[in-house]
């Protein structure tokens, strides 16, 4: 399955350089090892690949378009004289509205193969929860989604969607009541119910094999984008850009381009109210290596190794860690990591809506300002692909709130 595998990394211990690994309680080691074995088998099984492809084509709606964002390109050129061509990889057009479902189809087909019927997941923005609930409904599986109480408030539409899809949403009140705590709670559930439960992690984090497996399932984004840009432009892009929460949409886009060293890989972390303010979620920019949620990676933490609270207006980016492969791409210099603030994301959400007629999710809204900067920097002969990894419908309440408008049901207009 050349499309989704890469033999050279991680190593057999799940390491990307010094990052990754399997830092879990002993109770979880045996299920993690059997998951790894099942995945290794499935990913080279033509029947598994065929079923996955069939779902991706007819259920998710792949391939997603590669779209020339002409007016944003013009906007950048107007400010600068000339600008690189900006393309959007339109994963927001997927069924359920984000890239998350690519991974959920893969993992739940694997769960089915392993005979597991009880699915658990953690979610931040609710997109991974919705995608998991969707696929679980389709495959006739029980689904429990852990979600921080804070996120339940700011992502109400997605909570309701999950319930409509038959999932049980369990509020997590511990810690900061956001994504990292939802992940703790999901791990506790898994430790308790190892026999019948499959834990569907929503990003390229967690113990090995998750970072590699989730990347492989998301790699379809970059493989399609590469073929599409070669078809459209006859050459590789100069840069690919994606926002980073745990890093799955970014790894999905980057993966196919890692060997193409002429292509710059640029990840955009959430700078919240500014990296200097301390209220941010930029683990690579503002964190240091540590151990959390099964892997060694960059983490926001204090000098005593306690995990610090992340902050972002975007629930999907509000996580104090980052997938280990990004930590490695960062240290080796193969990828570059920058950040964008809450305010920049809000401003570019609106710009994108007005210029392109696309309501981006708050997560990819973080990638837009850095894409524009880069477009101005590189000038008119260059090509950039940005991952438009989710749509903004789920965020309209948060955005209305930030803009001081009341759109709650029952008010007029």
């Amino acid at each position: 399955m050349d499309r989704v595998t890469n033999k050279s990394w991680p190593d057999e211990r799940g390491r990307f350089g010094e990052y990754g690994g399997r830092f879990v309680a002993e109770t979880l080691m045996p299920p993690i090892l059997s998951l790894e074995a099942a995945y290794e088998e499935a990913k080279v099984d033509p029947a598994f690949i065929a079923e996955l492809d069939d779902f991706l084509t007819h259920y998710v709606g792949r391939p997603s378009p590669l779209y020339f964002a002409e007016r944003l390109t013009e906007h950048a050129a107007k400010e600068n004289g000339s600008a690189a061509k900006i393309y959007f990889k339109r994963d927001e057009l997927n069924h359920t509205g984000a890239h998350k479902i690519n991974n959920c189809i893969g993992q739940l087909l694997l769960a089915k193969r392993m005979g597991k019927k009880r699915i658990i997941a953690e979610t931040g923005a609710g997109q991974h929860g919705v995608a998991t609930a969707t696929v679980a409904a389709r495959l006739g599986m029980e689904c429990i989604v852990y979600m921080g109480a804070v996120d339940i408030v700011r992502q109400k539409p997605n909570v309701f969607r999950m319930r409509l899809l038959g999932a049980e949403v369990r509020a997590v009140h511990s810690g900061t009541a956001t994504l990292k705590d939802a992940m703790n709670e999901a791990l506790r559930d898994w430790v308790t119910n190892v026999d019948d439960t499959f834990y569907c992690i929503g990003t390229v984090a967690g113990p090995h094999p998750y970072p590699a497996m989730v990347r492989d399932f998301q790699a379809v984004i970059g493989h399609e984008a590469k073929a599409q840009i070669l078809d459209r432009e006859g050459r590789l892009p100069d840069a690919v850009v994606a926002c980073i929460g745990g890093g799955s949409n970014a790894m999905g886009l980057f993966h196919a381009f890692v060997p193409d060293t002429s292509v710059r890989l640029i990840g955009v972390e959430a700078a919240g109210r500014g990296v200097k303010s301390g209220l941010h979620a930029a683990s690579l920019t503002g964190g240091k290596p540590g151990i959390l949620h099964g892997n060694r990676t960059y983490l926001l933490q204090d000098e005593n190794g306690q995990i610090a609270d992340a902050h972002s207006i975007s629930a999907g980016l509000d996580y104090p860690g980052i997938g280990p492969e990004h930590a490695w791409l960062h240290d080796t210099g193969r990828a570059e990591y920058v950040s964008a603030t809450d305010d920049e994301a809000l401003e570019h959400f609106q710009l994108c809506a007005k210029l392109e007629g696309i309501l981006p999710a708050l997560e990819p809204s973080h990638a837009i300002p850095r894409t524009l900067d880069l477009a101005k920097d590189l000038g008119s002969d260059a090509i950039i692909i940005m991952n438009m990894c989710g749509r903004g419908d789920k965020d309209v309440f948060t955005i209305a709130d930030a803009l001081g408008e009341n759109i709650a049901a029952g008010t007029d207009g």
Partner: protein
Amino acid sequence: MSTRIQTVFAKGRPAFVAYIMGGDPDALTSQRIMNALPGAGVDIIELGFPFTDPMADGPVIEEAGIRSRKAGTTLASILDMARTFRRDDDTTPIIVMGYANPVYQMGYAAFSERAAEAGIDGAIIVDLPPEEDGPLRAEMDARGLSLIRLATPTTDAERLPKVVSGSSGFVYYVSMTGVTGAALAQGGSVAEQVTRVRDAAHLPVVVGFGVKTTERASQIAKEADGVVVGTAIVKALHEDGEEAALDLVRALADATHTAR
């Protein structure tokens, strides 16, 4: 292996192991409780250090960790607690227990050095399975400290030798799948599992997770080399105060010691 640990198991009676969250609810109270544990019958002290994301713990220990962190506890202050304890007690083994990241941030070598200096005998690091504990183990071994491994119901026959081969001091058998303090009022004999682990390890086997009552402690002590109680003690301390917690410890220790 630490001679203190050896001495405990050489007594030939089941050992009572008590877990407390260091620094809960504050440094002074916690120190007082710790110092009183041997007098209440505790043979080995598991001294928890707090972490923001205790993935294998239930709410009772998680909340104890939150109180402890609020009171300013760090891994360094936990080592200080042990040092203070050692002024009056040079025989009761102290095992620190918690998650990897605070240890990793201190540095495995620095941690081992400082732990040995403070009179600590060993550590249990919940999220360092055998696959990941090599670097810390090397540093601890070099200073005569035990890195104690957990065996669980999911540790199958194939994996067990690997898990126990690296343990030193004793093996901690987690008698159920789940988080600490889970409401599983699980009964039944642990004889089979204990024998399985002991035969593979050739080390004493202590059993914990989910033990709350003197009846259960006594039942387990019939088969195992020791019984660990954590959540019930942490809960009693928080809800009913120091005296009640020590009364519970005395009763559990007594039930354990007189089980056979």
